[in-house]
């Protein structure tokens, strides 16, 4: 089932730079997709348009049936509630504990305390941080912080998890741990779209890969097809 559909999407920034050029893309429910390409190829712009951080200059972007391009600014939250987003720099609140950081996403909606507790404990278990719930982010390693960020992104039960270079700040071993967490989440039915530079990871994961160049799709590889040739 098609979850994301992009048709003739253009994105030109105000300074005149064309980031995305007539892009067509379709992603099905439950897929795990890597988006790769050189710096400045438009990867980040592409996913920013999915969670409406950026608005396309023209074209149509359907996410779960909603045209994200047309949605009004004050309605963006409706899209955001269907998506989880994870960044390279984690974006955690340092004054809140791990538990509070994850619960933060639920408190806004006024859920009852016990429901929040159950949901938070469940996702912390999923990312393997149940025993660190009371610690502060600054006391955690980079990998652990990223797992907290992932927990926060999925605690609402989003259909799509968008990851913008989630392993960019992590070493190889930790990166693989994060990938394992993401794969586990994907197996539970969440569609994952991940932007990365790390060809090593892409090689190992053997998922669908979309390679961008100058805002266009250069090549597309089906699951298991992509093999990065080491120079």
């Amino acid at each position, binding site marked *: 089932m098609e979850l994301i559909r992009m048709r003739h999407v253009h994105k030109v920034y105000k300074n005149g730079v064309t980031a995305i050029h007539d892009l067509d893309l379709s992603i099905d429910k439950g897929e795990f997709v890597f988006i790769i390409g050189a710096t400045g190829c438009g990867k980040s712009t592409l996913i920013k348009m999915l969670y409406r951080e950026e608005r396309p200059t023209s074209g149509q972007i359907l996410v779960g049936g909603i045209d994200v391009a047309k949605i009004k600014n004050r309605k963006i939250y409706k899209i*955001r509630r269907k998506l989880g987003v994870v960044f390279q720099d984690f974006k955690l609140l340092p004054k809140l504990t791990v538990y509070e950081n994850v619960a933060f996403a639920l408190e*806004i909606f006024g859920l009852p305390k016990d429901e929040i507790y159950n949901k938070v404990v469940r996702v912390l278990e999923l990312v393997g941080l149940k025993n660190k719930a009371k610690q502060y982010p600054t006391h955690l390693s980079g990998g652990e912080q990223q797992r907290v960020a992932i927990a926060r992104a999925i605690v609402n039960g989003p259909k799509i998890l968008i990851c913008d270079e989630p392993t960019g700040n992590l070493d190889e071993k930790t990166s693989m741990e994060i990938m394992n967490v993401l794969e586990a989440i994907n197996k539970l039915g969440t569609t994952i779209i991940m932007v990365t530079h790390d060809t090593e990871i892409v090689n190992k994961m053997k998922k669908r890969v979309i390679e961008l160049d100058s805002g266009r799709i250069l090549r597309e590889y089906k699951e298991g097809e992509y093999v990065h040739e080491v120079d």
Partner: protein
Amino acid sequence: MKLIRILFRNIRDSFKSIIRNFSLSLASISCITITLLVVAISMTLSVNVNSMTKKIEEDVTIVAFLDVDITEERIAEIEEEIRKLPNIQEGKEAVILDDKESIRQEMMDSSSTYEQIMQNWEDREDNPLKDAYHIKIVDITQMGKTSKQIAQIEGVAVVKDAQDMVDQLIGVFDVITKGTYAIVIALVLVTAFLIANTIKITIFSRKREIDIMRLVGASNTNIKIPFVFEGLLLGVLGSIIPIAILAYGYSTLYTKFDGRLFGKFVTLVKPEPFIYIVSGILILIGVVVGMFGSWRAVRKHLKI
């Protein structure tokens, strides 16, 4: 239930934020406190001034002295003519005759010198004093006109009114009231500006939090409300001291002077329900100014 939980969460967050930016919050609270204190003082002043103006208006009378050789029939006719004029209060008490015999008696009672002089004036014809009407009017500002109309009645010798004194007094009261209004408005504006500034800095210091809130799907209202609450709370906190001072100060003043100042000249308004009404108004001003200030800051700096 959901709304109540969100409400409590917002109140909790507002308290946290006030404590986190304590010095700035304190500045805003102090500013509200000073503003509301001035508001309280000016309201006390203007309410009392108003009540005094009313009292003066009720008490001020025009005195019409009649001719010395007037007949008693004519005296009665003059009363009728006065009552027919516009701007004269209705009712028996509004036009009262002070006949010269009772004036003589009153004066004789007041001093022995008068007694010696006046004891021979027992007959009406001998009495050189003048009969007088005390007349109450409706609109004090029309006093001069009414006086002139009374003076034109045949048999009226002289008309005395307190026009100049009343004019001056009401003029002074007017200046006091307008002056306090001006000060209050200026202070309210300054306070709203200060609160807007406090909230602006709060917004900047919580930028990261706001970004994350947006990211996890908080609606604009979700994001705005805690800040508006914070403004509201600053307003409420700022109104505590002025209310305490007003409640304690005014009732102490009232009991100490038995409701009167400067001899018996000024009668104070009773503390109850005056204090409750003014306290309510103070909280309301605090809340409105606080919310307005933060709303402005949120609109301007959150860009949502």
